[in-house]
């Protein structure tokens, strides 16, 4: 699904160079649920942004689903994000001026899709996150947990192969966080690959695999298989360090 080889990211401003990622090798297989942990400023978001084609890499190679990401132009990256990747953000990133229905519609509108199909997908996605009755509401009328569910519905509506979440529970209390986590696990069970950045060790422990990033490098690949009844087990020896 996702394979990074000796990948580097350097931010250059006129004063300093920041080596946000230093030659990292990461391999995530189809269907995995990976948690990315690490201290603040270690490069987790940078990794996720590159994985999600939001930023370009400055060295190494990134293959996404067999496509060399560095060979894509801006339009192709937009299209790929739209069709293959779903994003969940720490601060939900719902559009405040659009109601829930229209918010979920946003990524679908960037595809050539009939109104009927879009509606079907939106209804389906809202049902999956249990907010079907709220589609005329505006984001400000929902709780944080509900807003994050809407954001998840927005990510799901496009049926992405890969779901990227940057601290999806960072702005939620532990009860709501658990709800969101359960939803993600449920989505993963149905086959979507998930990479989630989190600070919460408890949540990280629930993922099948942890990638620990420190100072732009992968320092620790958690090899311990976690037994979880209904989760397909990943091959212990697939990840590359």
């Amino acid at each position: 699904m996702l394979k990074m080889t000796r990948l580097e990211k350097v931010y250059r401003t006129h004063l300093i160079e920041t080596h946000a990622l230093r030659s990292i090798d990461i391999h995530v297989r189809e269907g995995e649920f990976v948690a990315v942990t690490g201290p603040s400023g270690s490069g987790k978001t940078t990794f996720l942004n590159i994985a999600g084609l939001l930023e370009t890499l400055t060295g190494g190679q990134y293959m996404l689903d067999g496509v060399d990401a560095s060979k894509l132009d801006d339009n192709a990256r937009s299209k790929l994000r739209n069709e293959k990747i779903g994003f969940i953000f720490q601060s939900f990133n719902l559009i405040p001026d659009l109601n829930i229905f229209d918010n979920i519609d946003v990524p679908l509108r960037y595809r050539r899709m009939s109104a009927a199909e879009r509606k079907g997908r939106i209804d389906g996605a809202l049902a999956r996150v249990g907010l079907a009755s709220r589609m005329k509401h505006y984001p400000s009328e929902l709780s944080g947990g509900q807003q994050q569910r809407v954001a998840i519905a927005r990510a799901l509506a496009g049926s992405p192969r890969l779901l990227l979440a940057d601290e999806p529970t960072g702005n939620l209390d532990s009860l709501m966080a658990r709800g969101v986590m359960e939803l993600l696990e449920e989505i993963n069970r149905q086959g979507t690959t998930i990479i989630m950045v989190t600070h919460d060790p408890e949540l990280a422990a629930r993922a099948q695999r942890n990638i620990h990033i420190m100072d732009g490098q992968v320092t620790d690949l958690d090899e311990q298989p976690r037994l979880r009844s209904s989760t397909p087990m990943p091959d212990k020896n697939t990840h590359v360090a």
Partner: protein
Amino acid sequence: MEIGPIFSALRRNKVGALLIALQVALTLAIICNALFIINERLAFIARPTGIDEGNIFVIKNLWVGRGTDAQNTSLLQTDLQTLRDLPGVADVYSTNTVPLTNGGWSDGVNLTADQEHSTTQAANYFVDEHALNTMDIKLVAGRNFKPEEITDRAERDSGLPDSMIVTQEFAQKMFPTESALGKAVYMEGKKPTTIIGIIENLQVPWVGSWVKTWGYTAALIPQRMIRQNSAYVVRAKPGQLQTAMKAAETKLFSINPLRVISSVKPFSEIRAKAYRGDRAMAILLSIVCSALLIITALGIVGLASFWVTQRRKQIGTRRALGATRRNIVNYFQTENLLITLVGIVLGIVLAVGLNLWLVNNFELTRLTWWYLPMGAVMILLLGQAAVLPPARRAASVPPAVATRSA
């Protein structure tokens, strides 16, 4: 296109959008009417007098000392002959007035001696047999005056001679269904005057709105004005206007210095002076229009820029969710289109209202309908152009903003 959601989002940002729509409406209403007025003025200013304006100049002469009629006649004859003999001069005549000077004589024209209300008003140009050649006016029917037909008209003389030449408009007004040639009309007193020739086009001396219905209704009267002061109309040979003007003045002084030449003016100067007010009005209105358009454009740029800044995170999120740069530009353009369209609908109503008010309160004609769509298209293009720079800036918001900003 995502008109539906854009419209919904706009409804939640009503104030800014409505202010811009209102500005668009006012601008449209004003520029439609102003452009209409400007164009009418320009058409008004551009009307031809019918004479060879490029080569004609007018000399105003005043004799020192009040001579007898006989003396003045002889002085006039000498002056005219002297001018005609100048190498750069094509022809000369003396007259009471020329077009666009806003001074002259007019008379009511009647078909019978005792007609109560005149059929039309007409300007009287007192001329000699050189007038047609000097003004370079085309005779379309009949003949020019013969030298022996020209009489002297002293200050106390009244009544008109037996014959005259009239403009086509004159002929058409008096005899709409038949040829005016050889027909008699009554202008001054009870004596008929026969139309012996018809010329193509000659504007009356006045340009005000009171001559609106008879701007080209003029008669050439075969009389030489005998006065202490007189006006000589001179046509220079092509390309010799300036030299002829100088030579004429010098020569006139050299044959008789007992005179005051109050002015030697090329016709272009007379035209410029006649329409100075109209030109100033057209320029002023153009400035107002330009200023309004610029202010509206700046308003659009301002609001759009504000929105781009305000929506940075939203734009980044849209980019992350798959919007291309083009999609982002389209979003702002569509949004601007919606706002402008609301403004245009409002503006058309306002434009018609403003025009009706102007028609009722001032001497103004009804707005020609196509000024409305023309103005609307102008504003629409202006809006799209104005929103483009901020829209481009929006499109350059990096998708990483979605994860990088709080």
